[in-house]
């Protein structure tokens, strides 16, 4: 008897195909790869935040044992690391776009900026030699904070960026917006900071440059979320290597969270130097380097104003943000506070007019770029704090205020005043479901019980939306994107019927090797074990755009569907020939081709074999083979959304916050693998709780990184996160073939305001309107203590 067939298609939660290798230590990460005759690179990094380089003496270092080569900015004169998104100023002029040389050219602009590369036979030898390089720095005053960089007489980072301003951009009609405020009954005004974060993927970045002189072929192995994008940026803009001579491989990658989207200097350095020394070069960051060289995230300061009528209906929103770019423009830095954030300011509400302006600022800090959620957490945090504050100020219940302003479920498609058109959603339902799961109504009793124990309980809510499935190319292009944002999927059916899928997306923890395979299993009716997902190698996969912005399933999965459509059509034609029927009469359902209304069938494997062994085959009409490629350009963004509720308890003696429980009801569209979705949302929430309660990057005024290791940078641990309840409520995306919306970022986007709203609620007796993130024990104790003192006086 056959074993029962376990359903592994859409909606099933098979175990992740990749986990055996990950959990048994047999993953193949960049640092696991060793090339014959390989050398090791160590980057000599600036200890100063801002300094002119008067001279570099490498003579002693070059003479040290094992040293193969040392290069400085004078040796490596190549193109600038490019910025992928052009933003225009209010007056229509383009942003200031100063160059970003891989090796510093006469000046360093942040602690960690690369001054020289030392290549040696071993890593310790390279390190020894790096310590022997004498750099003559003329230390310059640094501007570490945005306020310092914008102050009169501030030190200038780049000649090409007067006042340290990258751009001063806006969206929306200011006159219409002002008119709304003129009519308002209530106006709520408020300023907040979105704290700077350090991504900290588990695997530090690494890169291996390899060069074959006989073929003039360059290969870069790198920890990247998007190898084709790296090939394009590095090949075309930095090193002038044509695509056919440059292969980029991103093997197993241990987490990215956005920080591995970008093209980094080290990738260009090892690729360039490998060709010079004609030997492979490996560079692997240690954790200290990660802290000072991986692009950081967030770092916005925002002033916001919300206009309401008598009943609390939102009339208009006005937002002014300054956004920290760091010392140089990282690949997608410029798009984060603008098109990935300001366009989300409608949230789930019917606000008729929104005006947002963003000033982007250079500072002597590590470049800042997209980090899980990228711009959307900033918008969501602002909105959901603002709504809570508005509720308090107007005396309208915070749930009621949200409900009054929700976009109704029957109003889709809904055009916001900030460019986006939402396709679907049902905010009342996700709210209702979350309130029930979190037992919102029972909260006051729990608060009293906690108070009897001397603890401060609070509950907080966030009803949010985000835009992902990035992105319709024409729309993105019109907004300044310098790339297309479609995706590719190739379905290669092998002669015996198993399938390899080539996808341009990249999995670095998300479980694509399982989820994407489930799409094939569901469609072709073959077991999951018969499907492999191939990704991360520009020589194996057609040109694709990679993984970020929760796009892999919505865009990459849709490309696969299109390719599978082509496969099924061709297979039906072959089946029709074999069964001597008309194509129109041949139906295909999960593995079986059938002449409609008869018991004449052909199995999947027979058709695959026939395609490759075309003995009895309509060779005049159909080519042999069963291998199809499709490119899919999304019609719109996708709009996951939902409701997050957090309940916290604060110990007033220490200021420590415990997350008692966290409830998420997310609409991520159709769920392919519920287990993976749950894991993705949990991970996102952990990072959101991290941002809200624990994590922050701090620099001192001289630009030294104070939170430069795990001794001082607080990563969330399991016991910080509390009990998570994650559920989904589906409304389908209307414009992609799978109905999927994306789940990678919702956790990190929706959660921070829920946590801070809960903290503020817990402190309601202390006259607190807002607590800046992270709400650390020390910060909360000071608030509580000054409240107590005020009460005592």
């Amino acid at each position: 008897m056959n074993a029962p067939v376990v359903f592994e298609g859409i909606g099933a939660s098979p175990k992740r195909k990749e986990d055996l290798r990950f959990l048994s230590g047999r993953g193949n990460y960049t640092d696991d790869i060793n090339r014959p005759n390989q050398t090791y690179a160590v980057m000599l990094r600036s200890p100063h935040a801002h300094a002119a380089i008067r001279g570099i003496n490498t003579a002693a270092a070059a003479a040290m044992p094992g040293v193969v080569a040392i290069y400085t900015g004078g040796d490596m004169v190549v193109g600038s690391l490019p910025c992928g998104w052009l933003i225009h100023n209010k007056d229509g002029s383009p942003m200031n776009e100063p160059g970003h040389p891989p090796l510093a050219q006469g000046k360093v602009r942040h602690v960690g900026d690369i001054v020289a590369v030392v290549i040696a036979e071993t890593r310790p030898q390279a390190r020894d030699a790096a310590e022997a390089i004498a750099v003559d720095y003329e230390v310059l005053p640094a501007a570490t904070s945005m306020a310092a960089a914008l102050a009169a007489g501030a030190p200038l980072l780049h000649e090409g960026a007067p006042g340290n301003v990258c751009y001063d951009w806006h969206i929306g009609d200011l006159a219409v917006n002002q008119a709304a405020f003129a009519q308002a009954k209530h106006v709520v005004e408020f300023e907040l900071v979105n704290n700077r974060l350090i991504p900290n993927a588990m695997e530090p970045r690494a890169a291996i440059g390899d060069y074959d002189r006989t073929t003039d072929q360059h290969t870069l192995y790198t920890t990247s979320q998007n190898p084709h994008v790296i090939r394009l940026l590095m090949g075309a803009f930095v090193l002038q290597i044509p695509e056919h001579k440059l292969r980029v491989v991103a093997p197993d990658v241990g987490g990215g969270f956005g920080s591995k989207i970008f093209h980094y200097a080290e990738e260009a350095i090892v690729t360039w130097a490998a060709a010079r020394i004609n030997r492979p070069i490996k560079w692997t960051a240690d954790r200290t380097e990660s802290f000072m060289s991986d692009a950081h995230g967030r770092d916005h300061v925002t002033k916001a104003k919300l206009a309401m009528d008598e009943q609390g209906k939102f009339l208009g929103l006005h937002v002014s943000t300054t956004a920290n770019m760091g010392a140089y423009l990282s690949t997608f830095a410029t798009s984060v506070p603008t098109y990935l954030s300001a366009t989300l300011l409608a949230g789930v509400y019917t606000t008729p007019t929104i005006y947002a302006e963003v000033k982007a600022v250079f500072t002597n800090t590590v470049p800042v770029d997209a980090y899980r959620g990228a711009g959307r957490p900033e918008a969501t945090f602002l909105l959901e704090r603002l709504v809570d504050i508005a509720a308090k100020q107007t005396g309208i219940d915070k749930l009621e205020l949200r409900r009054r302003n929700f976009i109704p479920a029957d109003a889709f498609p809904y055009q916001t005043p900030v460019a986006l058109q939402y396709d679907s959603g049902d905010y009342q339902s996700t709210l209702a479901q979350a309130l029930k799961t979190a037992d919102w109504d029972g909260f006051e009793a729990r608060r009293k019980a906690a108070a009897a124990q001397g603890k401060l309980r609070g509950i907080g809510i966030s009803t949010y939306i985000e835009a992902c499935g990035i992105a319709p190319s024409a729309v993105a292009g019109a907004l300044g994107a310098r790339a297309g944002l479609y995706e590719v999927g190739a379905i290669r059916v092998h002669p015996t019927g198993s399938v390899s899928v080539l996808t341009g997306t990249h999995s670095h923890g998300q479980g694509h090797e399982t989820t994407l395979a489930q799409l094939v299993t569901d469609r072709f009716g073959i077991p999951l074990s018969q499907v492999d997902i191939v990704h991360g190698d520009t020589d194996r996969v057609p040109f694709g755009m990679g993984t970020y912005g929760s796009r892999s399933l919505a865009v990459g999965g849709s490309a696969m569907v299109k390719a599978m459509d082509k496969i099924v059509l061709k297979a039906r034609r072959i089946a029709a020939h074999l069964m001597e029927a008309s194509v129109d009469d041949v139906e295909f359902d999960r593995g079986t081709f059938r002449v409609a209304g008869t018991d004449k069938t052909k199995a999947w494997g027979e058709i695959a074999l026939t395609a490759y062994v075309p003995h009895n085959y309509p060779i005049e009409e159909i080519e042999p083979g069963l291998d199809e490629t499709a490119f899919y350009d999304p019609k719109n963004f996708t709009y996951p959304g939902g409701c997050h509720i957090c309940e916290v308890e604060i110990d007033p003696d220490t200021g420590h916050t415990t997350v008692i429980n966290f409830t998420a009801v997310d609409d991520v569209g159709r769920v392919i693998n519920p287990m993976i979705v749950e894991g993705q949302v949990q991970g996102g929430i952990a990072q959101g709780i991290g941002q809200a309660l624990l994590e922050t990057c701090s620099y001192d005024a001289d630009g030294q990184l104070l939170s430069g290791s795990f001794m001082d940078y607080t990563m969330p641990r399991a016991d910080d996160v509390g009990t998570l309840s994650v559920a989904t409520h589906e409304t389908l995306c209307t414009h992609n073939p799978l109905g999927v919306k994306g789940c990678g970022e919702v956790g990190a986007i929706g959660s921070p305001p829920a946590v801070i709203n809960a903290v503020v609620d817990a402190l309601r007796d202390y006259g607190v309107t807002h607590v800046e993130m992270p709400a650390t024990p020390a910060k909360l104790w000071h608030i509580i203590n000054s409240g107590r003192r005020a009460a005592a006086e």
Partner: protein
Amino acid sequence: MYDFEYHKPTSVADAVKILSADSDARPISGGQTLLPALKHRLNKPTSVVDLSGIAELKGIKRDGDKIVIGAMTRHADVANSAEVKAAIPALAQLAGSIGDNQVRNRGTIGGSVSNNDPAADYPSAVLALNATIVTSKRRIAADDFFQGMFTTALDAGELLVAVEFPVPEKAGYAKMKNPASRYVMAGAFVAKTGGQVRVAINGAAACVFRQAEMEKALAASWSPAAVAGVVQPADDMNSDIHGSAEYRAHLVTVMAKRAVAAAG
């Protein structure tokens, strides 16, 4: 890591011989502090003397009204020791709260006490329990041992061999962890031994110290309420991105209260 010579002696005498001959040699016990420093090239010893082969440094025994713990005894062994749990449960609890499993399975009491990290746990127990530090050449009272940040009374080439803890009538420990490192941000170890009350505060200042006013208050009345009113001056408290001196001073009182409550 820079190159160094590696030694693995089997007796304290041999270890001392190597260490005395070379002032740049360093003992290594669990390596939980020294190894990260070596990896970051913050330390450049000429040789490293591994104490793990010295049998006489290991183990826990009850000796009359004392618990004697050998320098090479790992935190996990102290935490799980039946003798320690029976005689000084607060000490077992303290050991079980250090770092994580990996750290507790490698780190040793000798390494921790010799290192005298201001944010370490053990020094508070040593001081509050009025322990005696037994070294390769003498016995040192706890009050004389901890001399400042990362500084102790140990001479160059002198090895910590064991710590002798008098068994107290009551003892309790409470700490607030640094949110990032989870080392001690402010901790209090309170003990009553032979009628004497001692209160040691760790984490909050540059070095573990005795809180005299709290000792007086507890001697008068052993209760959480007795220390609740004692205000720790903020002057010498640490201040950093995790908390101000004022916050730490406040925590000292809170932790002392909790330690007394835990002691019962």
